[in-house]
């Protein structure tokens, strides 16, 4: 925006939230120029921290009066540039709205503000016999508002579903400043399912200021297993067999040897470093059924030549296993100076195929690739290792990434299972969808956000190119 207009804008925003809740100096806004997708950066003109829905509404009204773009942001852990402030403007950071307003066990819901960190709700529910099911690996940092925007998943969504399956209602500030309540504590809201439409819309349809989430009963028992395999083919085939046998594990995760080495160095769990792949399998539910499921899984793994299937004997051991899995990406720093994670999805029976293709693509471009899969969902996270100071490597990483994602599409899959389109994958929308699909999606955006001033340049190719050239894949966190 025009630099001369900024002071007036800042003054008006300060009058709403107080001077201490507005940032406008470039050095203060550095952290807000990108999310976990660090390739493309752009500073907002102003960052504002509202504490109430009314303040969010007033901020949006000010932006509309000044005709400047605005964009909501949670903790910024998203991985596809969903809160990159394309075109600058006002960034509305919702992390000061962090009250858990109500926990209602009888009606199985909680009301939370968007800045509540995912794990805070989990902690608040401890001992009640209930939990909030979506558990993204970044749950210690990411906010529920951000989870709603990106329809976050996590390892346990295989059995329990993703965020949209656990949101009953939202209060939101619309692009024109209206505050609208969608859905609520009751199910089957009459009319269109706009709650389900807003979840996963990456901040392009509404700014969510309050969320009614469904609470889930804790399972009576858990069995956590670690299958150790000599080849990745055996591991992926075992995963496919488990699903094909009609077992629905709570979680089914795979790590290949490349990442295992880094995870072991970081956490010293005692993983066998010579194994080509390990599969983390968790079943939960009634004690009366768990041992039979465990035995069936062990038999399937052995049938696929598993060297051994270890059982987590104690809660502490189980939690350590999950810590290794959820923090696997942090350990990648031990392997290379930079890395790039992809987020493809394939039908589950295609896991052996896609893993072989990833290996071939890595060889073709001379790029080392290690793999962490939400295998039960067919959601793959190949991690491409490189040094971003080497321009040729960077070029090869981008080419290899694109080829992997193209292969996912060719398998009948998707280019994003949980990270979102954001700005990173806008180019892939026209490969996944026909022009008419994108045109109808754009009409939906227009219904909510006719001027496009809310989160411009996101998700849809028709929403305007971001104008930033993708130059290098950069280092980033994942999951």
């Amino acid at each position, binding site marked *: 925006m025009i630099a001369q207009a900024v002071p007036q804008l800042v003054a008006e925003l300060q009058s709403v939230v107080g001077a201490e809740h507005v940032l406008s100096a470039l050095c203060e806004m550095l952290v807000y120029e990108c999310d976990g997708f660090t390739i493309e950066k752009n500073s907002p003109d102003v960052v504002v921290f509202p504490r109430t829905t009314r303040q969010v509404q007033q901020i949006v009204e000010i932006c509309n009066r000044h005709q400047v773009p605005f964009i909501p942001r949670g903790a910024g852990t998203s991985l596809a540039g969903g809160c990159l402030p394309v075109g600058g403007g006002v960034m509305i950071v919702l992390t000061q709205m962090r009250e858990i307003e109500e926990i*209602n066990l*009888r*009606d*199985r819901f909680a009301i939370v503000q968007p800045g509540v960190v995912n794990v805070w709700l989990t902690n608040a529910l401890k001992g009640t*016999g209930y939990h909030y099911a979506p558990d993204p690996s970044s749950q210690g940092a990411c906010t529920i508002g951000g989870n709603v925007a990106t*329809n976050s*998943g996590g390892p346990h969504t295989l059995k329990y579903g*993703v965020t949209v*399956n656990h949101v009953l209602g939202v209060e939101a500030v619309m692009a024109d400043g*209206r505050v*609208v*309540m*969608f*859905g*609520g*504590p*009751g*199910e*089957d*809201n*009459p*009319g*269109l*399912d*706009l709650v389900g*439409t807003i*979840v*996963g*819309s990456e901040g392009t349809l509404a700014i969510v200021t309050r969320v009614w989430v469904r609470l889930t*009963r804790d399972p009576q028992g858990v069995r956590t297993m670690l299958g150790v395999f000599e080849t990745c083919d055996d591991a992926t085939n075992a995963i496919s067999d488990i*699903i094909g046998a*009609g*077992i629905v594990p709570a979680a089914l995760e795979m790590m290949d040897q490349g990442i295992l080495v880094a995870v072991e160095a970081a956490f010293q769990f005692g993983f066998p470093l010579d194994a080509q792949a390990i599969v983390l399998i968790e079943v939960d*539910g*009634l004690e*009366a*059924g768990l041992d*039979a499921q465990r035995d069936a899984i062990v038999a399937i793994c052995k049938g696929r030549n598993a060297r051994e299937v270890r059982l987590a004997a104690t809660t502490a051991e189980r939690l350590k296993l999950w810590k290794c899995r959820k923090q696997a990406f942090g350990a990648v720093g031990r392997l290379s100076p930079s890395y790039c994670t992809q987020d493809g*999805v*394939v*039908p589950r*029976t295609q896991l052996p195929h896609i893993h072989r293709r990833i290996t071939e693509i890595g060889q073709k471009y001379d790029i080392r690739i290690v793999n962490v899969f939400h295998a039960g*969902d*067919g*959601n793959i996270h190949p991690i491409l290792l490189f040094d971003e100071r080497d321009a040729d490597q960077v070029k090869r990483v981008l080419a290899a990434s694109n080829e992997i994602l193209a292969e996912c599409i060719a398998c009948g*899959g998707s280019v*994003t*299972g949980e990270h979102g*389109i954001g700005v990173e994958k806008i180019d892939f929308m026209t490969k*996944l969808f*026909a022009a*008419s699909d*994108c*045109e*109808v999606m754009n*009409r*939906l955006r227009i*219904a*909510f956000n006719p001027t496009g001033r809310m989160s411009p340049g996101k*998700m849809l190719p028709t929403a305007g190119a971001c104008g930033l050239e993708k130059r290098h894949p950069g280092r980033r966190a994942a999951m």
Partner: protein
Amino acid sequence: MPTTLPIADPIVPESQDDLADLIRQAHDTTTPVYPIGGGTALDFGLPPKQPGWGISTAGINRLIDYPSRDMTITVEAGMTMAELAATLAAERQRLPIDVPHADVATLGGVVATNYNGPRRYGSGTVRDYVIGISGVDGRGVAFKGGGRVVKNVAGYDFCKLLTGSLGTLAVITQLTLKVRPLPESTALLACGFAHLTEAETALASLITSKTTPSAIELLVGPAWDDAGDIPGGEKTVARLVVGLEGTSPEVRWMLDQLASEWQALGVTSTLRIEGEQAPVVWQELIDFGATDDTALTVKLAVRPSRVCELIGVLQQVDPQVSIQAHAGSGVLIAKFAALSAADANNAMIKQIHPAAIAAGGSAIVWSANSPDDLTRLAVWGPVRDETLVMQSVKKQFDPRGVLNPGRFVYS
């Protein structure tokens, strides 16, 4: 093609392309289009008032792809629920959505009306299973959303947007579903109560039960008086039936566990419904939701803790009301046998909508035997801020208002 009302002799396109041609013509001539699946829920919503074309999806009913080991299936929208269930059962899988008249009801119709039965408590609703969707909008433009994989966040979620949209944004032509394994065993446990307060105590205790019910059904009124074996004598005002599914050891354990939990609450008589009897009772629980010649059928969805209170409100309207509550989910289906149209309008507007809203939810008329006399307010309840956003969406998908005009929640 002549326009008619009521819709007789619907047009039966054989493909999505033919359907898109028809809707383009309808758009160009501003002719109303009334999409029809199996015709089992045509009473839902306000009745059509403008002559137009009935368009049946019966010719768009093929199985497209069933990679059973991926636990997904892609079928055209006109496939009946019974055919879908049979296809899945051959691989020991199912879509756990309960629908009456499954031999006639189509998948597209079930999705368009967001129809769900008793298993919604344990298995979720149809929106949780649709992972890919295709349709034709009110301009005759064919489009799709989602895909064929179980986890996918690319683009806006048309699967959610079109589920429950009653054909007012698009005529659904094809669906990809994620499916579940068929449970090895199923049974039900039932008991009766002399007072609704006792029923609420039992419902509240199910929240912390060690069992994992698939369905929690509270049954009230004359329709259930001859409900066979479900216990209860002359003093029974409400029957509670809990559906249990899983492996045989799990189901056996749950039957024992729940019976002992109920005993601790003072329930003296419980009935185990197992073996061949179980599917019969499940079917009774599914069939109650079917449209019939009842004067007025209402669906309410409220906070689960308010179900018994709402039953009291419905009994004030008519002491003879018959009710099935999917009580774990806070959903009630109430059938009023004898209620004039004027009384129905009055009851909805003065009593039922306000009570449902006060209980954190909503009410809608599901069907009525003289629907022409019901007002929009009676059928859909008050216009809310959210309704206005729905109207904006409708204008984008169907700018000339040709899809199911005058029937849905839009004012």
